[in-house]
């Protein structure tokens, strides 16, 4: 164990494998912002499943029924493209904001950060501040220690399980799920996923914490590619701070040739990933801004202006001008605008019904004598709207083609109707493969019209 206490703290030893990070709690502007983000984001997550829209759960990814309800919208598996588009938009937004302001996501919005914040908050509330926690950890197992540790574990596990439950609540109607869980009647898979997600939360937020960011997060490794000299990053103003060194209160630092950094190492002590920001930007930095808060507090105490560590850009530190619109941000925002437009347009033009036509695989065609050649199809009509509609089906593409089965039917709201359809065409027009068109029209004036192409097959040549 390296002996390190406040005064003879040694740099470079921080990275020894047996060293630990025991972040000191910090207060200040960014700590308050982070706590606010925690309450808003966790609040939204926990309240989310309980919201109601039009008498049903507002956000529900109903997996067994294969329907996604998002507010007033119902998405079908066929609408997967929107989900993919949405994920791409989110990814590009992440790139855009990273280019602008660094790892905002990591510091304030990432679930890993947010739940870690919640778990450390519980830990602090139960076990006290950093030095009290450290003392408690080495203390013998007294009744008080057992009580504190048990209370912390209880609260952690309760929060983790509630998190798991809320997560599952997005996939399985939350009200019945809650009732069933309380009565021990819940579906085995639901219980499994509650425990699975709960355990992951407990492990990630309670124990692994920023190690997830340091070792496991793929974004941490490639976010550097989105940075440029105008990206806002947390930086130490070396010009102002160096040469660093401790000084007597009231002594003239300038006369001693010292900069503003008093080398109190608070910025290192509060860092959850255990880096020294004074060595410059490092990939471990998750931009939580704890060092800014810590340094500002110290600067206030010693009577120097705040901002020795602050959000700044490389160009600003080099006294160069800052450009908001540069090729990188222009390209990211152009892609973003393009994708958003595509998404909104395609959502607006989304067909309220889907027509699927599947050819009968058993027989290519059947000769039915004088009536001509028969082809069989399975037609699937999906009514994506909430209310029922009457439809009529027609086909075109070959001379004399006609439908032998029912062409008028009603499809209930949000349901799928599968119907066998038999078509016949006279011998002279049913030669080889011909493209035909199925057309579905609503007959109640709701203007639903969809078409689907298929093929009508006959013998290679007319007898």
């Amino acid at each position: 164990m390296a002996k390190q206490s406040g005064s003879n703290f040694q740099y470079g030893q921080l990275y020894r494998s047996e060293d630990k990070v025991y972040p000191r709690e910090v207060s200040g502007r960014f700590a308050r912002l982070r706590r606010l983000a925690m309450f808003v984001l966790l609040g939204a997550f926990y309240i989310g499943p309980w919201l109601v829209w039009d008498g049903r759960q507002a956000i529900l990814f109903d997996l067994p029924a294969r329907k996604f309800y998002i507010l007033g919208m119902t998405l079908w598996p066929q609408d997967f493209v929107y989900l993919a588009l949405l994920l791409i938009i989110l990814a590009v937004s992440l790139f855009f904001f990273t280019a602008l302001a660094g790892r905002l996501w990591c510091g304030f919005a990432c679930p890993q950060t947010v739940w870690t914040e919640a778990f450390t908050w519980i830990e602090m509330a139960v076990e006290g501040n950093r030095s009290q926690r450290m003392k408690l950890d080495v203390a013998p197992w007294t009744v008080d220690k057992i009580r504190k540790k048990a209370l912390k574990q209880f609260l952690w596990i309760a929060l983790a399980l509630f998190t798991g439950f809320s997560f599952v609540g997005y996939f399985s109607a939350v009200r019945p799920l809650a009732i069933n869980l309380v009565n021990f009647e819940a579906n085995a898979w639901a219980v499994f996923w509650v425990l699975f997600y709960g355990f992951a939360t407990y492990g990630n937020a309670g124990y692994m914490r920023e190690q997830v960011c340091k070792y496991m997060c793929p974004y941490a490794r490639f976010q550097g590619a989105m940075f440029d000299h105008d990206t806002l990053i947390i930086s130490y103003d070396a010009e102002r701070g160096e040469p660093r060194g401790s000084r007597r209160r009231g002594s003239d630092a300038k006369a001693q040739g010292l900069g503003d950094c008093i080398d109190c190492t608070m910025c290192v002590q509060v860092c959850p990933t255990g880096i020294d920001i004074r060595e410059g930007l490092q990939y471990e930095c998750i931009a939580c801004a704890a060092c800014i808060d810590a340094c500002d507090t110290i600067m206030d105490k010693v009577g120097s202006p705040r901002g020795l560590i602050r959000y700044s850009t490389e160009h600003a530190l080099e006294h160069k001008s800052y450009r908001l619109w540069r090729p990188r941000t222009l390209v990211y925002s152009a892609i973003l605008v393009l994708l958003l437009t595509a998404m909104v347009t395609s959502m607006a033009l989304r067909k309220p019904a889907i027509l699927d036509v599947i050819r009968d695989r058993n027989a290519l065609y059947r000769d039915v004598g004088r009536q001509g050649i028969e082809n069989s199809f399975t037609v699937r009509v999906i009514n994506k709207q909430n209310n029922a509609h009457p439809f009529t089906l027609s086909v075109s593409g070959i001379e004399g083609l006609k439908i032998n089965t029912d062409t008028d039917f009603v499809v209930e709201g949000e349901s799928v109707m599968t119907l066998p359809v038999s078509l016949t065409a006279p011998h002279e027009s049913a030669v080889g493969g011909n493209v035909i068109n199925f057309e579905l029209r609503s007959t109640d004036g709701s203007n639903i019209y969809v078409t689907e192409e298929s093929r009508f097959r006959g013998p290679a040549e007319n007898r």
Partner: protein
Amino acid sequence: MQDSDKPALPEWSRDTQKIAVLTWISFLIAAAFTMLLFAFIDPLVIVDAINVKWLESSNSGYAIGFFFLWANGWAAGWLTLRLVRRKRHGPAAKIRKR
């Protein structure tokens, strides 16, 4: 100030890092591909193919699909990590450089 015997966040060994990265990345990929897979395939298809009595529900289909993809990604990643040759640093490498 850092003088507790119990490390809160110790550095991870290379092997721990490998396992953690492998598990997490394959999880993310599996989650993404589960969405893609079940956008096109009904989970009941998987359940029917396996044909085990107590697994007869679409929820089982999703779970099996997800864990299958996760295990798959894990296996692929693990083999890749095993097979990628690391640069040699031994005395032989130094001699060869000369």
